[in-house]
């Protein structure tokens, strides 16, 4: 891991613009670095590797869903007799894959890349700061994340395998599950610690280290999204930590926080004291996990906003309402969590409250998305790879968001909740939504990190291939869900008569997933190849206006040659009567 990271960061080392750079060894410079850019790249590369790993788990599951009970050629034998005897997957292994796919994608893939990676690399540059406010804390938060990741990976090899109770770890199932679940909890505590330290650092940095003249309403939208995201992480994660501690106590010290009295497991009454409340876990979990949904989506929205303003050569339409919506959305995200729990029979008064707040929170999301779409109007759009991904984000996130509305209403949620419809809905938000936003960000800021552009042709192959495949994977799931197929079946619904007319969509969806893997190859190649062979660029290759483009590409330790200053708002493109087509924030 550290080797890879070193390779990515290496070009930055050769160009030293700074007069007073200190001599540091390899380890201090690339591994235990306190430089926000190196840490950002470490987070990004680790996050991307976890995304690839989590996607691989899913590809295995997709084989079982498309061809239930068939032997997986070649690879099946390698995974051993406990997991796939004779190449045929056992249900326990399927459950492991499902739980770990969710955990890895959310907590070890998307969040580290979106917040740890882009937040670390871009935010200090965009606000004109020399580094984060607490550089050593920043290093600590990366290594805490790394330890959490290692713990999660190691849990695959403990007796009984990794956690099998879903990424939500619902009690009491998780309380009585095998050793893997304990490892999951310990891993989560590391990941939570990492996020908390990171959130403190981001908020302090944004408030304290912004450049002279950079008032809050002159922030690029991306900085705003990271700022709000940091508050969500700071305040929503501790309740999950509390829940994790209680579940750990249940599993290790024999307490009964989540175990009701008289629980019967495999015909035996559990001997615990009882009196606990399984729903308590759900409340604490979703108190984190709903804000977490916004942690997943907001940074991507920020990236897309930057790229749209830059490539339409126009200011964002409705910057102030967007910022207002963002803050409102941050507050509201703390009081919608129980819309994930309509199935628990919580009673009409509670359900009415939570479905009302859920309908209200959809308003700011729609405001932001609408503002981004209107921003395209009348622009002379440059269709480069980052812009294609940003444009792909808009309808994909739109589909994900709009299909969520029926799920926010108690009555409509009950028949849909446990079906593939939900899988399709949130994957449209996170996969072709957030992940497209993150890809856009990689293509957009790559020149700043390395001094070279990624190849455009390979980028376009990557985009169009992924766009088609994403829809081939997820669109059929809406159909299967509406036909009533449950989302947690090991055989994909093959044993149910009513599922037979839609079962063939499983095969389509699976082939979509495997084809999408092929379309990631151009990206992986491009990512490494362009470090040395991409087209060289100057400080501001996209003719952008925000402050990160005032720094050299790649920026040296300490970032800016002279301390930058903000003279105007973030998106002064095509100002009537101006001498240039764009007026950077940092130019007087």
């Amino acid at each position, binding site marked *: 891991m550290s080797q890879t990271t070193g390779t990515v960061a290496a070009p930055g080392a050769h160009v030293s613009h700074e007069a007073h750079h200190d001599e540091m060894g390899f380890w201090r410079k690339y591994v235990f670095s306190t430089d926000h850019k190196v840490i950002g790249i470490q987070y990004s590369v680790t996050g991307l590797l976890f995304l690839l790993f989590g996607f691989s788990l899913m590809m295995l599951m997709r084989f079982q869903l498309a061809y239930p009970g068939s032997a997986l050629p070649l690879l099946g034998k390698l995974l051993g007799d406990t997991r796939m005897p004779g190449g045929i997957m056992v249900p326990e292994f399927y459950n492991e894959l499902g739980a770990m796919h969710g955990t890895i994608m959310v907590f070890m893939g998307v969040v580290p890349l979106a917040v740890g990676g882009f937040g670390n690399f871009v935010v200090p540059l965009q606000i004109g700061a020399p580094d984060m406010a607490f550089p050593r804390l920043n290093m600590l938060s990366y290594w805490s994340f790394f330890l959490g990741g290692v713990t999660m990976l190691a849990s695959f090899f403990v007796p009984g395998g990794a956690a099998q109770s879903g990424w939500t770890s619902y009690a009491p199932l998780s309380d009585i599950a095998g050793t893997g679940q304990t490892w999951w909890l310990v891993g989560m505590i590391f990941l939570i610690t990492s996020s908390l330290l990171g959130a403190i*650092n981001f908020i302090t940095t944004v408030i304290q280290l912004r450049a002279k003249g950079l008032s809050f309403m002159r922030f690029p939208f991306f900085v705003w999204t990271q700022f709000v995201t940091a508050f969500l992480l700071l305040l929503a994660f501790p309740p999950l930590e509390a829940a994790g*501690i209680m579940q750990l106590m249940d599993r290790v010290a024999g307490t009964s926080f989540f175990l009701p009295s008289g629980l019967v497991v495999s015909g035996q009454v559990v001997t615990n004291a009882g009196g606990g409340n399984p729903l308590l876990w759900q409340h604490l979990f979703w108190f984190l996990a709903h804000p977490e949904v916004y942690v997943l989506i907001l940074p991507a929205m920020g990236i897309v906003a930057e790229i749209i303003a830059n490539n339409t050569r126009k200011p964002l339409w409705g910057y102030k309402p967007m910022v207002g919506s963002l803050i409102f959305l941050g507050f509201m995200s703390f009081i919608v969590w129980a819309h994930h729990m309509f199935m628990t029979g919580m009673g009409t008064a509670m359900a009415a409250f939570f479905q009302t707040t859920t309908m209200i929170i959809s308003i700011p999301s729609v405001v932001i998305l609408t503002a981004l779409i209107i921003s395209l109007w009348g622009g002379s759009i440059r269709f480069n790879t980052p812009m294609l991904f940003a444009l792909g984000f808009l309808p994909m996130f739109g589909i994900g968001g709009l299909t969520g509305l029926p799920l926010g209403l108690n009555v409509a949620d009950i028949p849909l909740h446990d079906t593939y419809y939900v899988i399709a809905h949130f994957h449209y938000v996170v996969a072709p939504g957030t992940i497209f936003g993150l890809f856009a960000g990689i293509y957009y800021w790559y020149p700043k990190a390395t001094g070279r552009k990624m190849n455009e042709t390979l980028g376009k192959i990557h985009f169009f291939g992924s766009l088609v495949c994403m829809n081939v994977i997820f669109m059929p799931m809406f159909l299967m869900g509406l036909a009533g197929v449950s989302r947690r079946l090991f055989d994909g619904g093959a044993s149910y008569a009513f599922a037979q007319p839609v079962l063939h969509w499983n095969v389509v969806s699976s082939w979509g997933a495997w084809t999408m893997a092929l379309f990631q190859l151009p990206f992986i190649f491009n990512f490494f190849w362009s470090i040395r062979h991409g087209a060289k660029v100057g400080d501001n290759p996209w003719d952008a206006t925000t402050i990160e483009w005032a720094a050299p590409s790649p920026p040296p330790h300490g970032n800016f040659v002279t301390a930058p200053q903000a003279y105007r708002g973030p998106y002064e493109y095509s100002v009537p009567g101006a001498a240039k087509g764009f007026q950077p924030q940092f130019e007087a």
Partner: protein
Amino acid sequence: MEIPYTVELRRDTGLNNGKIGIWLFLASEVMLFGALFASYILIRTGSPNWPRGDTILNVPLATFNTIVLISSSVTMVMAWASLKRNRFGTFRMYQASTVLLGGVFLVVKYFEYSHKFENGLFPSTSNFLALYFTLTGLHMLHVIGGMAVNTYFWGPGAKLWKTNPDWFTNRVEHAGLFWHFVDLVWIFLFPTLYLL
């Protein structure tokens, strides 16, 4: 490269970085203990028979511990105030008292815990005890963390006083804010667990 506002205050916010950082950290701690207190309420209201705390726990010992922790908060403030008045020797004395009072708290807690274990009262015995051990255990980890930081500033960390006294004073102030928070958590825990 220097990070600005580590010591000096930023003009428009009137704060240094460490002050914002520690308050944000305390905000997350409020959410952590808040979630645990909320769980306490939910489990207690769902229980048909909940014991009164004083029938199981030792109220006089806990009262003594409450006084000990509040005193340690006072010595913590005095330690910081001594630095402000440029009296390093007095700081050392007060800082040592803070750490020692934290130690007294832990020793009393040790006797309380072992007395419970001897009588066969474990976290697994009932949900009352589960909450008692989890809440006080987590609080105790915070006491140990605070003592570690305070010991560091009493010992090796105090070298900073010679090179950058303002920065050192700020650090002691921030450690103090954490210590007061730990004290405050106990002030909520004591009536909740022992008296109600």
